[in-house]
């Protein structure tokens, strides 16, 4: 293993291990919902698996992968990492916290799903473990910012690499988001779970959760965007179409990704319709940077096709490296996001949300977005990263080439059927979709198709894991490892511009979060409220 990247490689290894366990939990759920009988199937295990799948995928896999990716870019784009030792401390904190939370889940003491809405109460170590993971990610953000500042002192006035620009945006969003989470978990859930206070306000906790819960999505998505903007055009053999707009996109996410949480609470009491409408406006505004991304990234790919001699309107598409596992993964992830984005616009639609809220549509939606756009980008990135990080050639290339297509095919079946089942009223997260009466019947065929899709997804996950493990253990050593090469822009920026002013934009972002949350929270706090005692019905 090449020493410089040991830290990053270790993070990515842990992320992939969490992904593997979570994938197994996922396929069992899909089978259970379709009412397929298998040994050990039970209600308790089903909801335990939902919790483990959610926590391991949404919090552990993503956080470790993003931390690892950040360290790669610090090393390659800044040529340094300030505070390597403390970064290792953060790694062990994150690993310890994740194991702590995972053990309480697997022992059946924390079947509260990854949303952990009180008054469902988990084991105290579930909340404490999750807190350690988040604290570790804060340290990671600090290491990244310190590395950037050290670089900046030596390079005044020079625009930083787009990778670092994107990672800094990710980190700012993460700090804004986890501020809400910290209030909920440290201020409310931990004291309550330890018995220091008797009661908890479920709505207040839920509001802080969604303060965190939606920007969490952009914490996952922005590192994927960094890969799309900064690596994909290079792998495809092209140029980044517009560097300036890419920088603008990341800043718009810093501004708009947090003041949107009420769109997860349209169906909740206690928050006025007017404030829900305000969060609807910001939610639609945050579509904008993704629409710009769609143009810039696809234009960059067209440049790649034309540099390889493509003529005509669509000729360039066929000239792209569809058999490269990184390229195929990211390209398919982008196609999935086109559909996921439109689904998201429906979820965000204030009143139309009532048709899909908490139905199977939602699990269909976040499996095309998080489960494909982000997860497939990260899997593809692993194929690109591994040889460079550990100095070994990718093993079983044909399997790696097939794997993204398999994932995409499985997801089309899985996600489409749950979208339709949701429109027919099937609730999400049910042990079995075969409820009584005609509704159960109209859902059942769809849940079976979803189970077939889920099985294909699991096979694809297995293929990914096999390639990774084989490469890590028996890949042919390459010395020196292949270099990291990043996309250059058609017009590289010569000077820093408005979109490089992180201090300014962070201040505006904080102001927007305050405008979006302070008044409705004060309204809630000023009203006489009753708390809820604990419940552990699992």
């Amino acid at each position, binding site marked *: 293993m090449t020493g410089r990247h040991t830290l990053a490689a270790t993070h990515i290894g842990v992320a992939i291990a969490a992904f593997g366990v979570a994938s197994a939990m996922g396929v069992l759920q899909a089978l259970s919902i379709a009412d397929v009988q298998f040994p050990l199937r039970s209600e308790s295990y089903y909801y335990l698996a939902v919790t483990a799948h959610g926590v391991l995928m949404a919090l552990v896999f993503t956080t470790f992968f993003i931390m690892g990716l950040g360290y790669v870019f610090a090393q390659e784009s800044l040529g340094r990492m300030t505070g390597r030792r403390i970064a290792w401390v953060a790694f062990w904190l994150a690993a310890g916290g994740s194991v702590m939370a995972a053990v309480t889940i697997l022992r059946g003491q924390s079947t509260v799903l990854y949303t952990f809405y009180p*008054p469902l109460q988990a084991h105290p170590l579930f909340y404490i473990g999750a807190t350690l993971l988040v604290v570790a990610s804060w340290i990671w953000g600090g290491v990244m910012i310190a590395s950037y500042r050290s670089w900046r002192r030596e390079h005044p006035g020079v625009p930083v690499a787009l990778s670092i620009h994107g990672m800094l945006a990710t980190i700012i969003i993460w700090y804004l988001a986890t501020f809400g989470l910290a209030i909920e978990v440290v201020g409310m859930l931990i004291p309550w779970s330890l018995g220091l206070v008797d009661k908890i306000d479920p709505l207040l906790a839920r509001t802080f959760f969604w303060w965190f819960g939606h920007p969490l999505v952009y914490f996952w998505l922005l590192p994927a965007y960094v890969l799309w903007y900064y690596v994909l055009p290079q792998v495809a053999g092209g140029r980044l179409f517009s560097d300036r707009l890419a920088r603008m996109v990341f800043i718009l996410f810093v501004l708009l990704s947090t003041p949107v949480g009420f769109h997860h609470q349209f169906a909740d009491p206690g928050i006025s319709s007017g404030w829900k409408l305000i969060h609807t406006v910001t939610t639609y505004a945050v579509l904008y940077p993704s629409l710009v991304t769609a143009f810039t990234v696809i234009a960059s790919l067209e440049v790649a096709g034309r540099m390889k001699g493509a003529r005509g309107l669509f000729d360039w598409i066929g000239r792209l490296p569809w058999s490269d596992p990184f390229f195929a993964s990211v390209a398919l992830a982008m196609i999935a996001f086109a559909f996921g984005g439109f689904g998201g616009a429906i979820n965000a639609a204030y009143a139309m949300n*009532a048709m899909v809220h*908490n139905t199977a549509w939602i699990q269909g939606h976040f499996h095309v977005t998080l489960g494909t756009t982000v997860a497939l980008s990260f899997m593809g990135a692993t194929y690109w990263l591994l040889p460079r990080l550990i100095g070994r050639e990718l093993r079983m290339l044909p399997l790696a080439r097939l794997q993204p297509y398999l994932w995409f095919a499985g997801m089309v079946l899985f996600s489409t059927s749950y979208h339709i089942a949701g429109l027919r009223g099937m609730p999400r997260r049910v042990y079995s979709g075969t409820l009584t009466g005609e509704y159960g019947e109209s859902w059942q065929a769809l849940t079976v198709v979803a189970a077939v899709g889920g099985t294909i997804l699991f096979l694809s996950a297995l293929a990914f894991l096999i390639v990774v493990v084989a490469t890590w253990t028996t890949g042919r050593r390459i010395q020196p490892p292949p270099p990291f090469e990043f996309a250059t822009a058609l017009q590289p920026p010569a000077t820093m511009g408005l979109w490089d002013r992180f201090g300014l934009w962070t201040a505006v972002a904080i102001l927007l979060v305050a405008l979006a949350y302070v008044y409705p929270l004060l309204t*809630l706090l000023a009203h006489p409220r009753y708390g809820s005692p604990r419940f552990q019905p699992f």
Partner: protein
Amino acid sequence: MQVELYERIWMWAAAGIIVLFLGAIGLGAALQAIEPPGHLETVDPTALADHAEFGAPAVTTRDDGAIVVPVVATMFSFSPDPIEVPANHPVTFRVTSGDVIHGFDVVGTNANVMAVPGYVTRFTVTFRRPGEYLIVCHEYCGVLHHNMVGKLIVK
């Protein structure tokens, strides 16, 4: 900032789409009062049994003709069950929970809200088609969550 012509066209189009979407939502909210629940009213979730309205929840017709349905969701059922309401008449639901967070979704209609302990979720809906409707809980509430269903009869 220099932006290529096609990209500039796309950026304006993207902004246009977003304004169009928001315009549709705004018109629906302003002209047809299509909006989610939004009032703030609290109730003690540990004392629902003694509560005048939620102690023994039942469909009531108020003096002004308004039909009000208090609903209590508890693991793993809804009360009252079944709920019987007339067709083509606005019905105001007042939903709360006696334990954890539940969902209250009348399948095939746009009656779909959360039942949060300590709070009352109020919304009004008019059912056009008579018949029997399935009510499901759509928020995980414990090990028998999937069995938590109820019935709405529209006459």
